[in-house]
């Protein structure tokens, strides 16, 4: 029996946990016990029926409590591998790696030094600059930065990127309002480029190379930029830039990279975990969540090649639950 802990079960909010669970189930491995963990007692994944067991855990911001709760759960479940689904959990687990491993839990993530180089949007831009990774023209600014300086060098529309997401500004006034509202120490103002959009889900082996990937072209998106329909493609430059990024960074584990452009592509976003559409990797013949489990446990595992032309249509499924079960995790 292999016990796998999966976090981030709120599909409605775009967390990838249930996509990971689906991929693990698609592996057909009946020897897997999947333990779900989420910080909200009302996350849809808790009620999905796809988990062998579910627990509510503290938000990763509550560091000490998070580790204590994980220890409690581990006493009962004896988790072999944990797959974190939120960027903040990846940051935290990388800092607590020794404590987690001392519990006998394996986790495919890099050390905290590596994670800190890309832990927020501003550090990601700094890393791309240092490493010569093509990206849209960007400025790292603070709330007290000189607006004239920004508008002199950047062309509107721009995107303001921070932990809370990406917000467009079409002119100087909108930018001023956004900057005042966010009032953050550090964020990124980036020129908005038009073009085709691609995202790639990769798995970096502890040896420091990409050992599996699935890439999609976004065919339809929602107003706020979530992919509604995508199709598996095989664009060489997407993989080349991703390889360059991962190898220069020394990343280990899952990651999602997003690109925009026409003939030339630019890296626009980096997520330190599996994307919400991760179940597509299993459907396309490259089951990356299952590969994480096998590699983390030091088992030999042959990762296949992606099947191009397979499209994904994102959907939300409603669940019907007895009223008393709703409060089961409260």
């Amino acid at each position, binding site marked *: 029996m292999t016990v796998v802990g999966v976090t981030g079960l709120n599909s409605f909010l775009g967390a990838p946990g249930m996509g990971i669970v689906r991929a693990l189930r698609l592996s057909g491995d009946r020897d897997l016990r999947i333990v779900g963990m989420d910080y909200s007692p009302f996350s849809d994944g808790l009620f999905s029926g796809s988990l062998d067991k579910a627990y509510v855990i503290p938000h990763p911001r509550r560091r000490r409590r998070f580790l204590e709760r994980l220890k409690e759960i581990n006493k009962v479940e004896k988790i072999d591998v944990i797959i974190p689904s939120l960027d903040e959990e990846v940051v935290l687990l990388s800092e607590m790696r020794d404590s987690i491993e001392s519990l006998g839990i394996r986790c495919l993530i890099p050390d905290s030094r590596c994670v800190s180089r890309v832990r927020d949007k501003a550090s990601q831009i700094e890393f791309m600059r240092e490493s010569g990774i093509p990206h849209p023209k960007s400025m790292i600014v603070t709330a007290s930065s000189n607006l004239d300086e920004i508008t002199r060098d950047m062309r509107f529309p721009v995107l303001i990127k921070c932990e809370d997401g990406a917000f467009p500004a079409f002119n100087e006034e909108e930018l001023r309002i956004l900057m005042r509202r966010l009032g953050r120490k550090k964020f990124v103002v980036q020129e908005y480029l038009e073009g085709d959009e691609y995202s790639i889900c990769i798995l970096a082996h502890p040896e420091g190379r990409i050992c599996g990937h699935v890439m999609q072209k976004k*065919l339809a998106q929602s107003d706020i930029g979530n992919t509604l329909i995508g199709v598996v*493609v095989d664009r060489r430059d997407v993989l080349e830039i991703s390889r360059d990024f991962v190898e220069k960074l020394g990343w280990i584990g899952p990651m999602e990279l997003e690109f925009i452009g026409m003939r030339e592509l630019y890296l626009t976003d980096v997520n330190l975990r599996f994307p919400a559409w991760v179940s597509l990797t299993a459907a396309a013949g490259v089951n990356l969540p299952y590969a994480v489990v096998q590699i983390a446990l030091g088992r030999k595992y042959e990762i296949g090649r992606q099947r191009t032309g397979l499209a994904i249509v994102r959907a939300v499924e409603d669940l019907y639950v007895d009223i008393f079960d709703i409060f089961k995790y409260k």
Partner: protein
Amino acid sequence: MTNQSSKFLPRKTVRDQIEDKRGYLFDEETGYVYELNETGCKIWILLKEGLSNEEIVSKMAQEYDVDVTTLENDVKEFLKRLVEYGILEVVR
């Protein structure tokens, strides 16, 4: 760039689905999907059989009641576009 005896072949990254009166081409590199009309489908099938530009025009002329010069121009324009889109490559 091309002449009447030029031969074109679909690039390996292109997949097709050809029906009676319409068809689709999917470029697995870029993710673009192209729709073909009935005539486009016919030309595409002949291309896949390995026929040259000239041979395609000659085959089409047997089927369509249209003067050869118009047909030559239309086929040439169609093939030129597919080359531009990266769907076809010129093999000679």
